[in-house]
């Protein structure tokens, strides 16, 4: 998406991005179910009008059962994810047990909040821990909010109606995966800076499972 017309959920006037700057201009989504979460993203990274990577995995592991989904400026998002991964690994060693998803979300939120004037990225944190089960946290602009499901990135604007209409509490893991896949596919169909393939990660007590949905396997919707 062109930097001047970026449809971020927030409006940054302090930090105007340059023409060559690389953006993930994305669609990301996370859904909670009983016993875990499903996180999904598209795979397009754009710099201005050019696509610099069409197979980029925007789901970054922060810890064994905690993932984050990247959106916004690619450099900022990757840097935040690297920092948070490092801090969480240390935190986990100090605790001598895997950190809580809430801790991970707070780690990300603290970085995002402290440097909110300089940074231009939104990381959604989702995972499973034995205390609260599956959780999804949005950390937009430095806030911390737990939601049953969350969407983000420039493509999310096109699917608010779809997700609000389709979501129902108590969905099974399979239904959540289908819900996420459909929503991201719809957003990819309408947002210029979302596209490529769909990466899906399902996190449960048993572990994490990654899937990649390519080409013909993508759900087909009305397309003239």
């Amino acid at each position, binding site marked *: 998406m062109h930097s001047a017309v970026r449809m971020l959920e927030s409006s940054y006037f302090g930090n105007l991005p340059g023409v060559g700057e690389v953006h993930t201009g994305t669609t990301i989504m996370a859904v909670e179910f009983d016993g875990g979460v499903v996180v999904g993203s598209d795979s397009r990274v754009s710099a201005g009008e*050019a696509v610099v*990577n069409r197979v*980029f995995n925007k789901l970054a592991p922060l810890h064994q059962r905690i993932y984050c989904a990247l959106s916004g*400026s690619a*450099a*900022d998002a990757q840097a935040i994810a690297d920092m948070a991964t490092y801090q969480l690994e240390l935190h986990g060693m100090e605790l001598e047990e895997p950190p809580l998803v809430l801790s991970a979300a707070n780690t990300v939120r603290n970085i995002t909040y402290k440097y909110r004037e*300089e940074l231009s990225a939104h990381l959604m944190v989702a995972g499973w821990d034995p205390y609260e089960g599956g959780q999804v946290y949005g950390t937009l602009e430095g806030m911390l909010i737990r939601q049953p499901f969350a969407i983000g990135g420039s493509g999310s604007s096109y699917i608010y109606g779809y997700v609000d209409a389709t979501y129902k509490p108590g969905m099974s893991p399979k239904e959540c995966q289908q819900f996420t896949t459909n929503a991201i596919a719809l957003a990819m169909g309408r947002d210029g800076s979302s596209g490529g393939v769909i990466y899906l990660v399902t996190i449960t007590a048993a572990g994490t499972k990654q899937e990649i949905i390519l080409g013909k396997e993508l759900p087909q919707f009305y397309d003239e």
Partner: protein
Amino acid sequence: MLHSAREPQGGFSFENCQRNAFLESSLKGLRVPHARKTGTTIAGLVFEGGVILGADTRATNDSVVANKNCEKIHFIAPNIYCCGAGVAADAEMTTQLMASNMELHALSTGRKPRVATVSRMLRQMLFRYQGHIGASLIIGGVDITGPHLYSVHPHGSYSHLLFTAMGSGQGPAISVLEDRFKPDMTLEEGQQLVVEAVTAGILEDLGSGSNVDVCVITQAGIKIQRAVSTPAVLSKRQGKYDYPKGTTAVMKETVTPLALEMIEETVQTMEVE
């Protein structure tokens, strides 16, 4: 004798950035001088035995070719090489810094350098400078974990890919790679494809030109070939433009000796001890 008010200090000086941004926005039509970019085509791909990197050899200063045969494939470690695009000085200095740090890191850890380490050090440094270091780099190498190819952008974002191209000629180059790349190609096929990709950049992009340099990195070692191909051959001059002595007739010759008076003679002995 004129002296500057402050002695030049090391490091970057960002004093004028705010003023420049203000001038650019308030004075319409103001052309701010830009740092010299390499206006490049660089490309890389992973084949069955390792990594192949390719680059053109033209360095431009706006629309003038500053260097017809510059080297854009830089040494990082014996098993890792790096192609640089963007601002020439930034790419050069950054890769030299990385090479130096990688050697120290290898000595300190007692392990052979890894491509992932170079990529991480690079992006952390570039992110710290928030894009002011205009270096776009393709890092390729073969380490203990296998062959790897990374592309790093000036702001610090990175991608871990099987093939990539960067620089002003990246469009044509990536088109060629998208069309003909297959995983696990042989060395000959891979090298041919890299040369074709860089050639596309040279022919289609004004900022890229001259020859194609190739660097092949395998478990066994590296092989750099300068000027593997020269796609655009200079046309032959149609005529000779040298005029023989005597073409212009001399009508009159006047010699005027200048009367110089020696005022002072000093002898300074050289210390030869």
